[in-house]
């Protein structure tokens, strides 16, 4: 039960952060060095996939994860869906980190915060299904 609410809370936080990353200009605290720069990442060609902001895919992932997490304590299918969804999320996070570090050569700390929330959802999913 606690793991379900924890996963739901982490997903909701990720949803809010992803929405922020989709629409808001990069805040100053995010521009630490030329390497640790949200702007370099969010204004790179990789910030959009098929014309859609990458952060919007994240918002979709977190919204679905949140819905499944709320239902997971009552519905077995929701808990199972969350496992598959988390695996997809981990793959996505790995790909995004690769793009940041290797292709763009910059690190966006707000994006990293969203990745951490995604990993938190995946870890809590393990406890939900234990």
């Amino acid at each position, binding site marked *: 039960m606690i793991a379900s609410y924890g996963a*739901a809370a982490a*997903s*909701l936080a990720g*949803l809010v952060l992803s*929405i922020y990353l*989709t*629409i808001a*200009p*990069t805040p*100053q605290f995010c*521009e*630490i*060095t*030329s390497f640790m*720069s949200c*702007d*370099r990442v969010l*204004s*790179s060609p990789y910030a959009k996939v098929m014309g859609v902001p990458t952060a*919007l895919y994240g*918002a*979709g992932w*977190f*919204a*679905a994860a*949140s*819905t*499944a997490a*709320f*239902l997971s*304590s*009552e*519905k077995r299918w929701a808990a199972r869906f969350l496992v598959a969804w988390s695996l997809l999320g981990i793959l996505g996070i790995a790909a995004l980190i690769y793009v940041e570090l290797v292709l763009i050569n910059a690190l966006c700390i707000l994006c990293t915060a969203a990745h951490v929330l995604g990993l938190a959802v995946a870890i809590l999913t393990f406890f939900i299904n234990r």
Partner: protein
Amino acid sequence: MPKNKGRGASVKTYLAFIPAVVLVAFIVYLVATPPSPSLTTVTTTAQTSVSVGGQASSFSLNLIDGQGLKDQKFDFNPASGKLVFMDFIHEWCVHCNNMAPIIEMLYTNYKDKDVVFITVAGGQNTDAQKTANYIRKHRVSWTAVFDPQLEVFRKYGVRGTPTYFIIDPKGLILVKLEGEQTYGTLAQELDKYLRHR
């Protein structure tokens, strides 16, 4: 619909649909709202002393080229008697990198029409050597100066990079454009003045 086991279960079911509703509302908002200009924000306190229609400010900064920062100062006198195209950039700004070939093309086509090109490169989160690399990479062959403390950025009220100014021969600011622009937009603004002089 899921079977409710009681009041708690019902609340959870309703809670479960809130993220989906938020996402749908957000997508609707995105579709209805036009995108913001492609501009990289920079840290400058608002001490704007120039505006469109007003007099441009003079400044003195060190010149920079593909080799690095020069010991030589460049003194900008707005009433230079020539049309001035001035761009504010940061070497790490992706939008500035995207615009670099367009500015180079603009320079190629307008340098012989009595238009003076000046690039003011900011020093936020970067240094002179990285800026010199940018200048070399993008073949900036016109006047470029380095503004390490963003003093001139503040003077000109630059909120982000790239920002473009067109200044008339008497020093009046004709145009201020923020974010990525097309070649056509910039050329059109220059042509407007060149046609009526």
